[in-house]
């Protein structure tokens, strides 16, 4: 029997021909439909582009789906390569996303009370917001900390503060996320040492430290050291955690701050994943097997206003990460391909005018994050453009997640928007846009060169300016800001205020610590750290020794700074 006569083959040919005819008919009908569409007047009070400036078609059809690649290759099943539909097989039927509200203010004592309040109201994980001095590696009694202690987060200057922060909160049971970058390894050491004092082993530690310095240079700007030593410390963390704390995520590669600084969804996606690839390359350059550390790399994305674009962004992120890790970096363990992420609703989208409306913005954004398949979520409080959130505002934000989880039915099925012509087309477009940006980054010599040249910073600032122009020209409506402003005249809402006495109290705590500790032990630990920094040794253990010896944050920062120097930003606007 020749191929020509194979009945299965001719049936297949017949079906393909039928499919071609149907596509031809669809194309013809779509052309006619577009003509009719063109004749009908449209609203002239809206931009029909996404908030990122993406052109949006009036309708999407099967013609918008990628021609190459089939369902299994591009989408797959939940928990299976390329993870477009979901990172896990059973998703929210096994475990809902972790409801993790970012919180911290005043001293460790006040924040410890807030954590207990949140846990009592059904929150399932903790997320530490540090004050600016801590974020920059300054002790509360450093001259540069004046006026900022405990104001935007909690002040943590030593192991003693960290112990108070988690007093009565078992660190082997509650997973804790810490947003800290420049001095991340030092705060991580305080955390590990606090767990030790609770009798919790390194093996049992869960949680995440943000520790993503690349996006600090690009967007968030809480840096300490220059890129090379900073990256060395991060790889030290990868190595140490893979050996000692295998359930701990030593990094959360973050797009959130990139987006908040003004990036588009495509820039957020591409810069973040590009940073992720840079960390993978750094780990490999150290000689670490990619499958030893890649499974513990975690992510953090913003979830902004443009609903479908945001859902697609999460899907595209998973597919891009999986493809690069498997194909380019030759990871063999599926855990290395699986992108797991935290999400936070867009702080920058909140308005100071009519702040109660923010509850609604946050609810839509939270819905997009869950439809995008996030593993954990922070929903912003309505009053965050005005001050730190009050307890009431935080409770409403948490309730928003609980309503989503228990009342809407949304978590019942995985990736319910998968197969939507629009969402699939957006997912493909975002992936293509990211690939294009990866090429540009390569052309400018990689991520670190791009940072030094201000390439990322300029791209973000330009996008921010375009968005501002759209809002100020009235083309992009913001409810309560440039339209529907009745009720926006005065802002009457209770806000949380941090008393100046907090700074005094924290300085007194620190003075007591300095008076009571063994200075010789402090000096020895710092000298050992400085000596180790001069070599290529892994610095996590020496830093941990400093933490146990009650060295302060700034003392540890400074010991390394003497060897590493500090970072100077390229200034422009």
């Amino acid at each position, binding site marked *: 029997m020749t191929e020509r006569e194979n009945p299965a083959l001719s049936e297949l040919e017949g079906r393909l021909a039928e499919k071609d005819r149907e596509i031809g008919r669809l194309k013809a009908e779509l052309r006619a439909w577009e003509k009719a569409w063109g004749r009908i007047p449209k609203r002239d009070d809206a931009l029909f582009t996404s908030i990122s400036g993406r052109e949006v078609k009036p309708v999407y059809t099967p013609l918008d789906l990628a021609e190459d690649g089939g369902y299994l290759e591009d989408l797959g099943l939940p928990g299976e390569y390329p993870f477009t539909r979901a990172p896990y097989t059973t998703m929210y039927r096994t475990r809902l996303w972790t409801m993790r509200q970012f919180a911290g203010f005043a001293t460790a004592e006040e924040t410890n009370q807030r954590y207990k309040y949140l846990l009592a109201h059904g929150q399932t994980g903790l997320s530490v917001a540090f004050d*600016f*001095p801590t*974020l*920059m590696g*300054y002790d509360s009694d450093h001259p*540069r*900390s*004046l*006026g*900022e202690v405990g*104001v*935007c987060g909690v002040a943590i200057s030593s192991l003693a503060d960290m112990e108070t922060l988690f007093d009565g909160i078992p660190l082997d049971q509650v997973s804790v996320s810490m947003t800290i970058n420049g001095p991340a390894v030092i705060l991580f050491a305080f955390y590990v040492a606090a767990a030790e004092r609770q009798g919790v082993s390194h093996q049992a530690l869960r949680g995440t430290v943000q520790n993503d310095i690349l996006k*600090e240079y690009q967007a*968030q*700007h*809480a840096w300490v050291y220059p890129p090379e030593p900073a990256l060395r410390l991060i790889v030290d963390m990868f190595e140490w955690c893979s050996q000692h704390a295998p359930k701990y995520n030593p990094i959360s590669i973050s797009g959130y701050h990139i987006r*908040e*600084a*003004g990036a588009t969804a495509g820039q957020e996606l591409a810069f973040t994943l590009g940073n992720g690839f840079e960390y993978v390359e750094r780990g490999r350059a150290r000689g670490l097997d990619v499958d030893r550390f890649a499974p513990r790399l975690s992510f953090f994305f913003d979830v902004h206003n443009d609903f479908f674009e945001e859902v697609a962004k999460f899907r595209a992120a998973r597919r891009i990460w999986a493809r690069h890790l498997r194909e380019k970096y030759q990871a063999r363990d599926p855990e290395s391909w699986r992108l797991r992420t935290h999400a936070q609703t867009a702080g*920058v989208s909140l*308005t*100071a*005018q009519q702040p109660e409306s923010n509850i609604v913005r946050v609810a839509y954004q939270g819905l997009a994050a869950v439809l995008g398949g996030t593993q954990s979520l922070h929903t912003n409080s309505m009053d965050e*453009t*005005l*001050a*730190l959130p009050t307890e009431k505002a935080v409770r409403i934000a948490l309730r928003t997640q609980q309503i989503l989880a228990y009342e809407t039915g949304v978590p019942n099925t995985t990736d319910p928007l998968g197969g939507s012509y629009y969402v699939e087309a957006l997912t493909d477009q975002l992936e293509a846009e990211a690939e294009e940006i990866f090429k540009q980054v390569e052309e400018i010599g990689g991520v670190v060169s791009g940072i030094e040249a201000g390439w990322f910073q300029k791209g973000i*600032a330009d996008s*921010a*300016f375009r968005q*501002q122009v759209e*809002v*100020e020209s009235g083309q992009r409506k*913001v409810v309560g*800001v*440039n339209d529907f402003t009745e009720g926006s005249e*005065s*802002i009457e809402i209770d*806000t949380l205020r*941090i008393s100046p006495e907090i700074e005094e109290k924290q300085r007194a705590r620190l003075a007591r610590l300095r008076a009571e500790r063994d200075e010789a032990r402090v000096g020895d630990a710092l000298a050992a750290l400085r000596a180790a920094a001069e070599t290529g040794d892994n610095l996590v253990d020496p830093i941990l020794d400093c933490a146990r010896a009650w060295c302060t944050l700034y003392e540890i920062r400074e010991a390394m700074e003497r060897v590493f120097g500090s970072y100077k*930003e390229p*200034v*422009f*606007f």
Partner: protein
Amino acid sequence: MPEGDRKIRVLVAKPGLDGHDRGAKVIASAFRDAGFEVIYTGLHQTPEMIVSAAVQEDVDVVAMSVLSGAHMTLFPRVMELLEEAGAEDVLLTGGGIIPEEDMRALQERGVGRLFGPGTATREAVAYIKEWAAGRRERGG
């Protein structure tokens, strides 16, 4: 060129440890588009660094962006240092996450208008232009 026709010189400054520079960069670009001479300090500046830059650059206006909640420390300190440097004719203005009652308290202490979230950049531009016109009339 008569003094009055000189371009308005503005120092856009980020004091303190706060790294949020989206607003500072947007306002700097808007000031430049409005025809001002703009100098941007970059991040993490102390009040001393800001005042020294203001004096060195001979600016008319210092516009500080503060999103860290430390405004009640930073604005008065810069005000005080400007006076010490004999630059009390410089307008100190700014914006950020600053509650209205704090704005009023700072204005009572001689700080210019402060702008909260959601303000159009043209409002800040108009304010500075008006201030400059008023100064010319006062013969400043």
